[in-house]
């Protein structure tokens, strides 16, 4: 018994030693190869990737112009209407309404914090820009909801679609936004509409992902029971699945919203205007104080929006909780 035990221990030691030997050999080879190839100049023929993209964009600019014009028109109409609304409501009404709602649902401390934050924005003279930012974010969110949630629903129904979608979503979320700002400018020009579309590209993935996830998580037992009584796919979706998924979907919407707000600074590079512009302006002139004020305003907006939508999501989940 004892002998076999020490035997096996020895074997383990042997394996460990061998591993170290191999690792040492590999590192040695690597260094040796580098040393030997030091003087040799190795080149590969250039793959014309950039040229290809240029050509494709050029082609799209010319041939897909009617399509992009159509999109532009829709976005502009929506944006104009939403901006007009935010401009039309006086700041005092907003501040009182948000403060009151926060007091009613989120408690006195949150309400005081919200009030202080919003009043600061007003007093430093950034309210109009803040509203312009909010209008842009809202427009993006409307578009994100009407595209992201249906896509999420489709993904939850179809495994193949889901797995085709996943790398696309990853790319949308991880690719540095500057990279696609360039083609967006080419295709759509600069201004608020391309800013909205760039924001959409960046911020839609969480809405899609969590809608898909939420619907896949709905208990199969509940779905089966509901279906056994003769519910149609349409009834299943609207009476069973979406109500049970709403809390998770809201979490996704909240994430999208936060990402949309964080995009406003970057999108100001292509003419989004609003608070992002103030940050950019301060940066280019090294005005730290102005930059701080604009940054603070963005932060306040983000916190107010985040806390409010989270509260909404919690109410939704309370509605559908299982117990």
């Amino acid at each position, binding site marked *: 018994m004892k002998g076999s035990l020490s035997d096996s221990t020895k074997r383990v030691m042997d394996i460990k030693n061998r591993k170290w030997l191999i690792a040492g050999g590999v590192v040695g080879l690597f260094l040796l190869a580098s040393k030997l190839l030091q003087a040799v100049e190795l080149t590969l023929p250039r793959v014309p990737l950039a040229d290809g993209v240029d050509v494709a964009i050029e082609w799209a600019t010319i041939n897909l112009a009617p399509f992009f014009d159509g999109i532009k028109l829709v976005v502009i109409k929506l944006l104009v209407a939403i901006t007009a609304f935010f401009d039309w409501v006086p700041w005092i009404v907003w501040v009182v309404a948000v403060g009151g709602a926060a007091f009613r649902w989120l408690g006195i401390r949150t309400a005081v914090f919200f009030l202080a934050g919003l009043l600061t924005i007003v007093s430093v003279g950034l309210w109009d820009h803040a509203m312009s930012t909010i209008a842009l974010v809202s427009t993006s969110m409307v578009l994100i909801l009407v595209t992201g949630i249906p896509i999420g629903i489709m993904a939850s129904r179809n495994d193949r679609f889901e797995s085709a979608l996943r790398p696309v979503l990853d790319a949308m979320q991880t690719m540095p936004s500057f990279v696609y700002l360039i083609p967006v400018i080419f295709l759509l020009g600069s201004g608020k509409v391309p800013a909205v579309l760039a924001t959409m590209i960046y911020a839609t993935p969480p809405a899609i992902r969590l809608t898909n996830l939420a619907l896949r998580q709905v208990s199969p037992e509940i779905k*089966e029971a509901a279906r*056994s009584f003769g519910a149609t796919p349409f009834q299943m979706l609207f009476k069973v699945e979406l109500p*049970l998924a709403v809390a998770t979907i809201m979490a996704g919407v909240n994430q999208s919203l936060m990402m949309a707000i964080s995009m406003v600074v970057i999108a100001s590079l292509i003419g989004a205007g609003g608070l992002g512009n103030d940050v950019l302006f301060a940066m280019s002139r090294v005005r730290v104080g102005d930059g701080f004020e604009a940054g603070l305003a963005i932060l306040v907006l983000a916190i107010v929006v985040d806390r409010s939508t989270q509260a909404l999501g919690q109410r939704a989940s309370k509605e559908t909780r299982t*117990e």
Partner: protein
Amino acid sequence: MAQEGAPKLSVRGLWKVFGHESTGGIVPDEIANKSKEDMREDDGAVLALKDVSFDVNEGETFVVMGLSGSGKSTLVRTLVRLIEPSYGQIIVDGDDILQYSEKELVDFRRRKTSMVFQHFGLLPHRSVLENAAWGLEVQNIPKAKRLQIARETLDLVGLSGWEDYRPGALSGGMQQRVGLARAIAADADILLMDEPFSGLDPLIRRDMQGELIRLQEHLHKTLIFITHDLAEALKLGTHIAIMRDGVVIQIGTGEEILEAPADDYVAEFVQDVRRTTVVTVRTIMDQPDLKLRQSTTPAVAMREMGQAGVVSAFVCDEEDHYLGMVSFNGAAEAKQRGDATIADAITVDEYPTLPADTSVESALPVVLEHHNEGALAVTDEEGVLVGTLLPSSVVGAMAQEAQDATDHREASAASLEASHADDQEEADGDGDSEAVDPREGMEVS
């Protein structure tokens, strides 16, 4: 439409192989001849139903019994195509439902069937009332009307007052009543129940069984009831089908199954029921319909039998000692012969007597052997007639006994669990309910 007398539902050669894609058509030989193990080894497919056939008559309670994994849930789900069967036919009211289009299928589920599930499957975001109305809601029945019907049905299952609660606020037993109400309110002809009471505490389970019997007495639905418990099967079933590894190995009435178990597997089930019975015949016997003295005249005997509506009667001497039976025909012949009493018309041989202290278990073979002849006489040590015994009472008593034993086992297991691990309560399904929990207070030590 179905012809008169045709079964409400018949299943013909139904197969389900998980992992193979195919519906309808003839069973390929290479599948028909393979065992469950072979199939799993060959390509990972699971043979869940193998050539299942049975008929269910209108208004009866058809119980499907088998151990875990025998394919019961698969079977009941294929009946409404929640699972698509691989081969075979399912004929309901003369229609093969496997030929239905998607739209016809939805319609079929709405009008012909409703289901009750082991884990209830209630909608957690809706009130008890709305849950009970679900079947009517999907049929687009106006809100006021469907809520009215749901309210009445909840009342029927004893849940009035709970309409506005969420299902999560109810105990397991009450949630299953909601499930039952939902199924009844939909007013379909066929009720499919997949182990509806298995997740419930023993006491509540018995309650619910009684409830179901009571409801069935005035609803007259066609019931297909799944269980893994022979006692429950005997208690509820008009016919019982026993399944093993996807095969139906016996179909019969409770009496037939107790009398002649089709194979070792069934015999083991039956043994389980028998072992547990300790009740004697005395506790379950009935009073005789008609008891005659041997000194009675044939004419009086005939008149009394006529009044009592029986074709034979027990005969005793003046001290109530049992002598035998006399049939109406026997009495009539005695009268023709001009006998003064019925003493000579008494027959003894065909009618064995049972001592009152016989255990139910030993009485079973005797009553089953004579079950075509009606009640048997029960006598005490002195041979005095003390009662009569019907085969159905014996079977019923054994079912009850077996259930008591099961309940007892499970109750002690449950209390053990409760005192050992609090976190296991959730797995129990109704453990986290606050309203009714008989295990409360057991969590001592």
